């Protein structure tokens, strides 16, 4: 069992780790005290989150009029942020499900935190459509319940309703997949606290671990469950962004009404999600001392996926331009002419630079194996993908069919506050996760230690 892996493959776990050392390293942030960097990051994130909550409260108290939307641009930052966050979430599922089916062992160091990222990103995403409803307390109207006024039902022909089903399925299934994977690791934490003689923590983690004991029968079912859930999550993750893209593609707005949208959105989602995973992982490996687990090898693998998906996104941009010209539809042609040379030219070219040009630097091996360069490029991609959604949404809407309705969109203080606030929510949740949950799937990592750890791989 020790060496079923080619010797020329780089080890995935460095630092001469054995099973016990893996447990010690991964439970260290949970059992120990937080360092000052954690507290600094947490304070900043928490204040940002409070700011966002304040802006949301003001929105609910006063009305949607406090956002920068107008009659022509009825969707702008809210939906941009929604699609951006949902897209970020996709990398987590891709890493844990698709890479599991492809038997990519390098996923094991990052899948736990990437899945956590998925869940937190979907929470942030869901806030936007919910608050855009205005009367948040009536949000349950999206569920298939008979309406108060009679027997009127939700409309299953509407892509917005498909979204309700897609996002809620995606969120709950990701949560279950993540949590059931955590159960054996919670048991490890529980037993570590038992050995440390801390009964309170032991009790808490026992509740979280559902009383896992790690018997052969439990593991047998665990592996079957992981495999089937991965098989279900793979088409699920593709369907979610497909359905999100159909919110646009099924409308008759120039620039939106295109069949390329589903694959284009899915590739973009994975692209932006991997960028966010890299941003988070590069911070986490430093602050949580995970340098031996998240290595340059992992970063390089993720960067390769960024090149692939970034290039798909680039091809999609060019295809859109070509098809708008080739279609001969003057509305389509104008929509794209307006995108790259109209009043929002700066947004379009920011998107092009960040999404198409910067990731191509990863073709150079030195750059793709460099932490600083990767971190900077990952930030560029995060920004670029936000602009992509902004460009698609606002440039298509702000030039209506009637030139008298032509306007510009200006975000208000509140729009910006809510967006920044969701970043605060995301990081607050992620930092809490880092301190209380095992950030690396210990059980899975131990199962590959002999084939991929540098201690055993000779």
């Amino acid at each position, binding site marked *: 069992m020790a060496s079923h892996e080619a010797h020329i493959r780089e080890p995935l776990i460095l630092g001469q780790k054995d099973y016990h050392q893996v447990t010690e390293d991964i439970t260290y942030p949970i059992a120990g005290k937080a360092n000052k960097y954690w507290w600094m990051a947490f304070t900043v994130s928490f204040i940002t989150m409070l700011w966002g909550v304040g802006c949301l409260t003001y929105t609910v108290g006063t009305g949607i009029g406090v956002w920068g939307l107008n009659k022509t641009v009825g969707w702008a930052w809210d939906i941009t942020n929604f699609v951006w966050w949902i897209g970020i979430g996709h990398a987590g599922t891709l890493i844990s499900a698709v890479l599991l089916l492809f038997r990519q062992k390098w996923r094991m160091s990052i899948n736990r935190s990437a899945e956590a990222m998925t869940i937190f990103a979907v929470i942030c995403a869901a806030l936007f459509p919910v608050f855009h409803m205005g009367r948040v307390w009536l949000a349950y109207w999206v569920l298939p319940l008979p309406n108060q006024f009679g027997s009127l039902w939700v409309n299953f022909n509407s892509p917005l309703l498909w979204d309700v089903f897609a996002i809620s399925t995606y969120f709950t299934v990701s949560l279950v997949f993540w949590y059931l994977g955590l159960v054996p690791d919670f048991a490890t934490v529980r037993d570590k606290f038992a050995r440390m003689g801390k009964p309170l923590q032991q009790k808490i983690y026992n509740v979280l671990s559902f009383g896992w004991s790690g018997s052969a029968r439990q593991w*047998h079912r*665990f592996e079957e469950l992981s495999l089937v859930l991965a098989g279900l999550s793979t088409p699920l993750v593709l369907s979610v962004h497909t359905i999100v893209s159909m919110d646009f593609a099924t409308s008759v707005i120039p620039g939106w009404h295109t069949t390329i949208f589903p694959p284009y959105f899915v590739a973009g989602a994975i692209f932006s999600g991997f960028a966010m995973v890299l941003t988070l992982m590069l911070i986490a490996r430093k602050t949580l001392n995970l340098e031996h687990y998240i290595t340059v090898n992992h970063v390089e693998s993720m960067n390769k996926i960024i090149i692939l998906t970034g290039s798909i996104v680039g091809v999609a941009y060019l295809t859109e331009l070509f098809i708008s010209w080739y279609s001969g539809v003057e509305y389509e042609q104008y929509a794209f002419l307006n995108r790259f040379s109209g009043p929002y030219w700066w947004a379009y070219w920011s998107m092009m630079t960040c999404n198409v040009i910067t990731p191509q630097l990863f073709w150079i091996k030195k750059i793709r194996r460099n932490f600083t360069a990767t971190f900077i490029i990952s930030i560029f991609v995060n920004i670029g993908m936000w602009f992509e959604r902004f460009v698609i949404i606002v440039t298509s809407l702000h030039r209506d069919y009637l030139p008298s309705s032509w306007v510009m969109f200006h975000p208000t203080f509140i729009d910006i506050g809510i967006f920044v606030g969701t970043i605060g929510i995301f990081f607050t949740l992620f930092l809490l996760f880092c301190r209380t949950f095992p950030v690396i799937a210990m*059980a899975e990592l131990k199962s590959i230690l002999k084939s991929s750890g540098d201690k055993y791989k000779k």
Partner: protein
Amino acid sequence: MSNKVIYGLFDDEEILLKSAKDMVSKGVRIKDVFSPFPIHGIDPVIGVPRTRLAIMSFIYGAIGLSLAWLMMWYMNISDWPLDIGGKPSQAFYMNLTAFIPVSFEMTVFCAAHGMALTYLIVNSLYPGQQPHNPDNRTTDDKFMVQINTADNKKTAEEIKSMLSSTGAIEITEKEA
């Protein structure tokens, strides 16, 4: 014969697997194995039957799909057909293409959650459940074999000597 439980502790899963194979070939019945991660190849040795969770998942998925179709047919075709832009929802098959996304999502929803709940029930995992791994090091770096003398013809002493000769680092005995 007295009823005893014997635990053999190993510090490597390969040694445990070899030891288990050896003992089973000599007619010892192993009750269970506790490990910090799945030991591949142990299931057939100690006689863990193949789980039917995947089949259950398929059945839950089929139920989900049926529920989705029933719901959409009742709400949008039977009870209150909508007429949008002069295009009424007249029959289920005419609307089927628009119903694909929700059908798919409901299938996945029921298959995944049904399977997860079944998994928790058959593994008897729930908040408040007490763990029954005999040694708390088995979730860290140790591997443990559990043998009940009641299942075996061999005496406790024979089993213990077999365990120690095949590489167990600690052997403990308990009255069942």
